[in-house]
């Protein structure tokens, strides 16, 4: 309980941190103190416009993590219906779905992501961008979990207890709801655990490439993009703070998964 609770608290705090823990407005510019090393006023230094890094990092945590969480939810929601239907009913539906997922898996994921991003307008307000990004990430990530679910449902529907229930006259909907979907929960949870860090990174990569959440809204990816300037990279070490934050989240998340999987297999 304790370690898991602490890690979850961290993620929750990061999500709520905006405005509560941040000492400054993330967009507030102190032009006369650009690129200042960490000091007592600016705990993590300032960037090229003299904006407080710590405040941007805290606000960015909300954007990045919310985006990844939303994308995970979207991907799983998109995967559940076609995956279970294809596995349960088979036939033409199954064939169509499998070919559809192959279409998504035929491209390297970053190319797919950029191509999907290319179909949507680029210059949008930050809130819309957040929505668009989560939708794009989710739409790109649904194929693998859908295939997994389909395979699982395919094997589940022929299990004895499902066949027995069917023999008692249970409807398809009842079978799916009571006997099959609960059995897929652990797989869905594992998939969520795998997708979330991938989406955190994907958001960072997209924003780093300038296709994600843009200025002035801070996300970890857009903050990282200042590191593409070699001078910034070599001379202002505190600009690497978002990279450290990303690493911390990855580490904590992996740790969380290890802890939870141990605790569930123990009981």
């Amino acid at each position, binding site marked *: 309980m304790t370690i898991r609770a602490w890690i979850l608290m961290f993620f929750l705090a990061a999500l709520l941190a905006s405005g509560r823990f941040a000492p400054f407005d993330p967009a507030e510019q102190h032009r006369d103190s650009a690129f200042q090393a960490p000091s007592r006023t600016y705990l993590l230094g300032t960037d090229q416009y003299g904006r407080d890094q710590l405040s941007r990092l805290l606000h960015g945590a909300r954007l990045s993590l919310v985006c990844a969480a939303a994308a995970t939810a979207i991907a799983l929601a998109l995967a559940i219906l076609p995956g279970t239907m294809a596995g349960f009913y088979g036939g033409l539906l199954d064939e169509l779905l499998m070919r559809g997922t192959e279409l998504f898996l035929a491209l390297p994921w*970053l*190319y797919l992501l950029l191509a999907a991003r290319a*179909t949507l307008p680029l210059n949008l307000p930050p809130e819309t961008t957040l929505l668009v990004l989560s939708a794009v990430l989710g739409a790109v990530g649904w194929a693998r979990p859908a295939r997994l679910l389909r395979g699982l449902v395919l094997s589940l529907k022929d299990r004895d207890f499902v066949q027995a229930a069917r023999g008692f006259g249970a409807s398809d909907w009842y079978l799916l709801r009571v006997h099959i979907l609960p059995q897929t929960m652990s797989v869905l949870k594992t998939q969520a655990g795998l997708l979330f860090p991938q989406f955190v990174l994907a958001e960072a990569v997209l924003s780093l490439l300038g296709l994600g959440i843009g200025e002035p809204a801070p996300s970890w990816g857009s903050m990282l993009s200042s590191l593409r300037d070699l001078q910034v990279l070599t001379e202002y070490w505190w600009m690497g703070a978002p990279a450290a934050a990303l690493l911390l989240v990855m580490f904590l998340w992996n740790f969380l998964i290890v802890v939870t999987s141990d605790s569930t297999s123990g009981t």
Partner: protein
Amino acid sequence: MVRYLARRCLHAFLLLAAVSVATFLLLNLAPGDYFDEARLNPSIAPQTIQALRHAHGLDAAIAVRYARWARAALTGDFGTSVAYGMPAARLLLPRCRNTLLLTTVTLLVTWCLALPLGVWSASIRRGWLDRLSSLAGTSMLAVPDVILAPLLLLAAARSGWLSLGGILLPVVALTAGAFPILLRHVRATMLEVLGEPFVLAARGFGVPRQRLLFHHILPAAANPLISLLGLSAGSLLSSSLLIEVLFGWPGLGPLFLEAVGAHDAPLVLGVVLLSASLLAIANLLADLLLYAADPRIRRTS
């Protein structure tokens, strides 16, 4: 053999065709095209834009446009890039060559490092060196490309190696990302085979250790590793996009990014199709290798 290959090729071709239809539709149904920004510019007359759209064939029905595009694409003509005003194929070819160069060199380096190291670390399993190497591997695995690349750039800039430029740094960055994963797989598959009865039998016959490892166990463990070659091609290409952009390697990645930013639909389509073909070719190669390496597959097909 020919039938096996033909079926694989047909499958890949159908997939590519489907990818092209989907991408074409999405790109053309998407709001906004390259001339949107020109339309906002008051010094460009609407008639000029009309004429330009007509010249690029943007005012025809979508099915007609796809048919036109597909017929040309089959002969290697990917249309005209709107942003560059030159044939997309001429832009794509050198970039594609560079990406291929980068990824094949990375593949070679990664496999040449990971195979012997993985075999060796499986053979001394549970020793402290093995533990150390898997610990190092795990921690490298936890560092994503987005962070690895700036770190490497920083190290290179500090030590003055950055002036070397060229292919060295991107290859190192890509290898650092792909190597630990491959190492783990090699070690795991080797360990799996090490427990098989035939290994015990061979050891009982007094087969020397080196020969046992590389002549008996490694071929038996090759199957999943070859499949991995095809499966990992996708992530390698993806990492290579990011690394190319960050290190300024003139591959498909920077071109793609530019094309996406400029709403340059022909170029985006070209890059998407090329990347899908690269992945398809990698999978075909893996299938062929599997066919060559595993007598069981030869017999069933």
